[in-house]
């Protein structure tokens, strides 16, 4: 009745790794650190995470940061540069590139076009996360973008 299939433990570990990224996205966190904390080798972690969630953990983390940046651009009185570093990016260039890739416009354009949101933040966090429906496909990544390539 209360059978626990072995792969549920595996999925739970992956979820805890995902929660770690959801919790500590503002920290200098990268895929190696997440894999290590979750007790996986990097390659095994990237493969398993992608199989479970449809994208690499690197993409997920950067998606989370972009989503938090959207939140801040909408609602906080901070500059684009401040927001870039706040959400864990180390260069403005990669932040703007990733932002445009994921959202379709630059951070500044996004800010001009977006009034403050009234969607509860928890739902934004859980739903808008790294899984942007506007992205074409999880398999259309550029090489080196957090994927094993």
């Amino acid at each position, binding site marked *: 009745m209360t059978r626990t299939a072995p792969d549920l433990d595996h999925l739970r570990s992956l979820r805890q790794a995902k929660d770690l990224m959801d919790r500590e996205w503002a920290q200098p966190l990268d895929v190696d650190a997440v894999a290590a904390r979750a007790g996986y080798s990097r390659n095994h972690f990237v493969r398993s995470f992608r199989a479970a969630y449809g994208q690499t953990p690197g993409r997920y983390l950067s998606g989370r940061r972009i989503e938090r940046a959207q939140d801040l651009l909408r609602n906080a009185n901070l500059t684009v540069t401040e927001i870039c570093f706040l959400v864990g990016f180390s260069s403005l260039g990669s932040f703007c590139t990733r932002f445009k890739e994921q959202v379709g416009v630059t951070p500044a354009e996004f800010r001009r076009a977006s009034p*403050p949101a009234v969607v509860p933040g928890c739902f934004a966090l859980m739903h808008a996360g790294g899984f942007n429906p506007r992205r074409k496909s999880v398999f259309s990544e550029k090489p080196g973008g957090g994927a094993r390539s």
Partner: protein
Amino acid sequence: MITGLSIATVWVLDQESAKRFYTEKLGFELRTDSAMGDFRWVTVGAKDQPGLEITLMEPAAPSLDPESAEQVRSLLAKGVLGAGVLSTDDCHATYRELSARGVEFVQEPTNRPYGIEALLRDDSGNWFSLTQRHEQMDPTAEWDPCVEGGSRG
């Protein structure tokens, strides 16, 4: 005329473990625990809200076929199912209290125009918002950028 919402279903991986989690860790009260053959009916609820119960259901026969049950179990374990919003009159205090009992949080208490909000998971992987609502929505209020929110010490 519909007069209220009285029971909401939350899928859980294990009813016994979920019953303990909801009563011992979240502090809910047990409302019903009865069996009808293989079918076990467990409901819990917040002490201050007698009119609304949560029924803790395992994804299994007879309500689900084996394949669907397996899928729901995977979704639970992956943590992609959200179960709802819990109200609190003091989000920070409740956060400390529940953390001390071992409840896993995805987000620490964070200021929002509608209140203060944290995000927790139950023992199956369902996520809940834990919200201390302001009397009124204040769209001009500062949104906490939760810079420190990610660090747990």
